[in-house]
């Protein structure tokens, strides 16, 4: 990581002071109006950030992390009521100034100028219709810090500072022409443009691959070293562990535990922190339940040398883009999934994982190679021939909402395969649906609801119930948990494993999360650019990676 910090004596901006408290928050309350009166989503939290310090706030979804961060720049949201005993930001001279009761004008002098803000979703946080350069330079223009003709130069400096190569070229490009990592860096550059002392980053790495995430984290470390105070919001404990000096754990609008990073992670005091930590899948969690911390029974022994239930042979898939360029989404991919076993596929974004999943499901015809299901032709069949067999191979996807007809109730969704593959009567189907919904630990009353009225975890369970309805032998799971937070993820993963044990399912498990893959898989295939670079038993691949790429991937994963 080569981050340059360019000296800027020519600017009339103070460099971040090297010591002292930058931000002080005492007893912060945030409420939103609702039908039943104001609803407090942040209830009396207090914390401080010093110069050169990184404070990470962690917690599950909806705990109030983002709202807290936004309240610090006066943008908690329309209708929000923000109260605090004290909310103070150190000025350039180091004197604390209160942030309460500011007018919109006063706020706009603070935003960007004194507090830089990096938003959660790098992919959509830059104006897609404007060049990177104009976006990065906007704070300079807005706060009138530099004459127009000097801004261009400064933009390049800023882009270089966050480690963007070829800054002059990048400045002239549009967001869609940049990868996620570059976009996130540009956002950071923009947040830093006016040299604020405090930088707030809300989930700055969620959408990024591990290797790219590692680079971004490097940028933050360098910034902290340069004296910036950083408030990092994340749900990823490992990221917090790697980066933060101190960690604050948030649950339900309250900080349940605050302390030095090491102490909080090694020796969690609060029950919630403990639960959170133990729910993170990793090498250590293999053979354990994630959500209850108990050891799980060993898998029933696999019969040796059985024929694979699914075999991919030399699969190649090519996409031709509108501009005629060809992408090899899969190139000579060969895989086997054995009955009752889990094959994990891991790889970075765009490596071809989903494509392989679709080929296995015969939703996409491979351009070369063939797929065999239970030793018989599968990809070569016509859809008509395949249809009766489809009940044996089912799928669970990342975003079930997209896979359900929005007009259907949960009951109808679960009955869909029953209607297709069985001749059960209406009452029998209903009964079976009840059964299935119990199997995935959902209350029976969800049957009448529509998927939009369910939480992410519940939807994922409905998806599992539907997949199980036709009593399949093989489940293709494409990123089934990556939209869920740690605790929900733990429950879903536990459920899948329990079902596998009970029903003897085979699974093709696709994920970009190495922890999840290691937790779940018997064997692992590592994919890169449409090619399987390494495959083998899970422990072998993780503990003794043979391929260079696997090694790099593993090195980039933050650890608790």
């Amino acid at each position, binding site marked *: 990581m080569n981050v340059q910090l360019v000296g800027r004596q020519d600017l009339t901006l103070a460099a971040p002071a090297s010591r002292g408290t930058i931000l002080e928050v005492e007893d912060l309350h945030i409420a939103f109006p609702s039908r039943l009166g104001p609803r407090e989503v942040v209830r009396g939290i207090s914390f401080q950030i010093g110069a050169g310090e990184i404070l990470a706030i962690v917690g599950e979804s909806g705990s109030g992390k983002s709202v807290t961060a*936004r309240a610090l*720049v006066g*943008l908690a949201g329309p209708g929000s009521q923000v109260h605090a005993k004290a909310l103070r930001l150190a000025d350039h001279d180091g004197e604390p100034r209160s942030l309460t009761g500011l007018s*919109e004008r006063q*706020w*706009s*002098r*603070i*935003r*960007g*100028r004194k*507090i*830089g*803000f990096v*938003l*959660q*979703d790098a992919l*959509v*946080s*830059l*104006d*897609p*219709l*404007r060049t990177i350069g104009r976006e990065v330079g*906007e*704070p300079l223009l*807005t*706060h009138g810090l530099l004459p127009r003709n000097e801004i261009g130069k400064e933009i390049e400096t800023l882009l270089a500072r966050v480690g963007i190569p070829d800054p002059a070229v990048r400045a002239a490009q*549009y967001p*869609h*022409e940049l990868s996620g990592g570059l976009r996130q860096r540009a*956002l950071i550059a*923009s*947040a830093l*443009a*006016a040299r604020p002392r405090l930088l707030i980053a809300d989930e700055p790495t969620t959408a990024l691959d591990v290797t790219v995430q590692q680079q971004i984290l490097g940028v933050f470390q360098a910034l902290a070293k340069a004296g910036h105070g950083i408030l990092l919001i994340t749900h990823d404990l490992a990221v917090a562990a790697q980066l933060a000096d101190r960690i604050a754990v948030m649950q339900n609008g309250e900080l349940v535990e605050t302390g030095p990073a090491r102490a909080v992670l090694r020796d969690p005091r609060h029950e919630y922190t403990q639960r959170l930590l133990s729910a993170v899948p990793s090498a250590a969690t293999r053979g354990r339940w994630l959500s209850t911390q108990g050891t799980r029974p060993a898998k029933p022994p696999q019969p040796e040398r059985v024929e694979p239930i699914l075999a991919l042979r030399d699969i190649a898939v090519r996409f031709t883009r*509108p*501009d005629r360029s060809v992408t090899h989404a899969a190139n000579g991919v060969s895989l086997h999934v054995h009955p009752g076993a889990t094959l994990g596929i891991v790889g970075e974004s765009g490596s071809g994982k989903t494509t392989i999943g679709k080929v296995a499901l015969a939703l996409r015809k491979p351009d070369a190679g063939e797929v065999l299901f239970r030793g018989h032709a599968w990809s070569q069949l016509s859809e008509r021939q395949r249809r009766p067999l489809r009940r044996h191979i089912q799928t669970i996807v990342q975003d079930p909402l997209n896979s359900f007809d929005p007009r259907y109730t949960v009951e109808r969704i679960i009955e869909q395969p029953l209607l297709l593959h069985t001749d059960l009567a209406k009452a029998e189907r209903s009964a079976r649906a009840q059964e299935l919904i119990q199997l995935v630990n959902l209350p029976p009353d969800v049957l009448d609801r529509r998927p939009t009225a369910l939480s992410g975890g519940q939807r994922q369970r409905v998806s599992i119930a539907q997949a199980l309805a036709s009593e399949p032998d093989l489940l293709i799971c494409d990123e089934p948990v990556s939209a869920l937070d740690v605790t929900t993820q733990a429950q879903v993963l536990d459920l899948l494993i329990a079902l596998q044990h009970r029903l003897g399912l085979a699974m093709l498990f696709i994920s970009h999360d190495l922890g999840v893959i290691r937790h779940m898989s018997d064997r692992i295939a590592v994919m890169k650019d449409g090619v399987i670079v390494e495959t083998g038993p899970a422990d072998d691949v993780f503990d003794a990676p043979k391929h260079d790429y696997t090694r790099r991937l593993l090195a980039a994963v933050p650890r608790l």
Partner: protein
Amino acid sequence: MALRRFGIIAAVLWGAATITFVAVKAIPGDPVAILTGGENVVDAAEREALVRQFGLDQPLPVQYLRYIGQALRGDFGDSYQYRQPVLEVIGEAAGPTLQLAGTAMALALGLAFVSALATAGRRKGLRTVLAGLELAVLSTPVYWVGLLLLTVFSFYLGWFPIIGGEGIHALILPAIALCLPLAALLAQVLRDGLEEALLQPFALTVRTRGVSETQLRLRHALRHAALAVSTLTGTLFAGVLAGSILTETVFGRAGVGQITLQAIKTRDMPLLLGLVMLSALVSVLINLAVDALYLLIDPRLRRAAR
């Protein structure tokens, strides 16, 4: 690519011409009566002569082929009603209509921008009033608005005499009458586009940079809203003929709307065909222009197009 575009334009024009031909031929009644003004004053011989002169004695396929062939060469023949080459008739009428439509469109865009920028996502009271007014204008028949404007501003106040020639003065009232519904529609769509853009994550990012609300609208949100607005502007402009039929009738202005109405009422086949071709051409060209504008506004589309 260019060739394909051209092919599409040709196909659309041909299709439009064919549909019109079929429709005109399907209109019941006697074309010669129309040629002669509907009075039963022609004898059989004259009928014959007229029928022959306008080629109405040929079998339909021959008439069709002849007509398409001539249209290909840009020759739409003579208008039955005006006894003058169709292109000339249209040419004469196009000027005033273009003037009217252009003025109305410009006015409408101006009004819409001011109203939408001022009230998108803020000034609740004013927003409600303006949105209500727009809805009212949109829901009131155009000709009605025109008549009211005339009654008030021309007859009672005498500010804009409808007599007195072709100058800008005579253009104002009809242009306003034509522009109001357009402005109302554009303002609504623009405001909605702005509000949608302001809800997107990037808008929050921009706010965290300390950019003021007005600057946020002007620098960022406007371009996003402009996408839908440019489509709508194109569609409206292409469809302005509809508005001009009514406006021109109310204000007694010469123009394409008038001759279109006449051509339909009198079944002036060649003229009608010319008019349909004209509006099809305009519509196709405007669509192309809007596509080009899209590329200008949205860089994301540029690569796909290349």
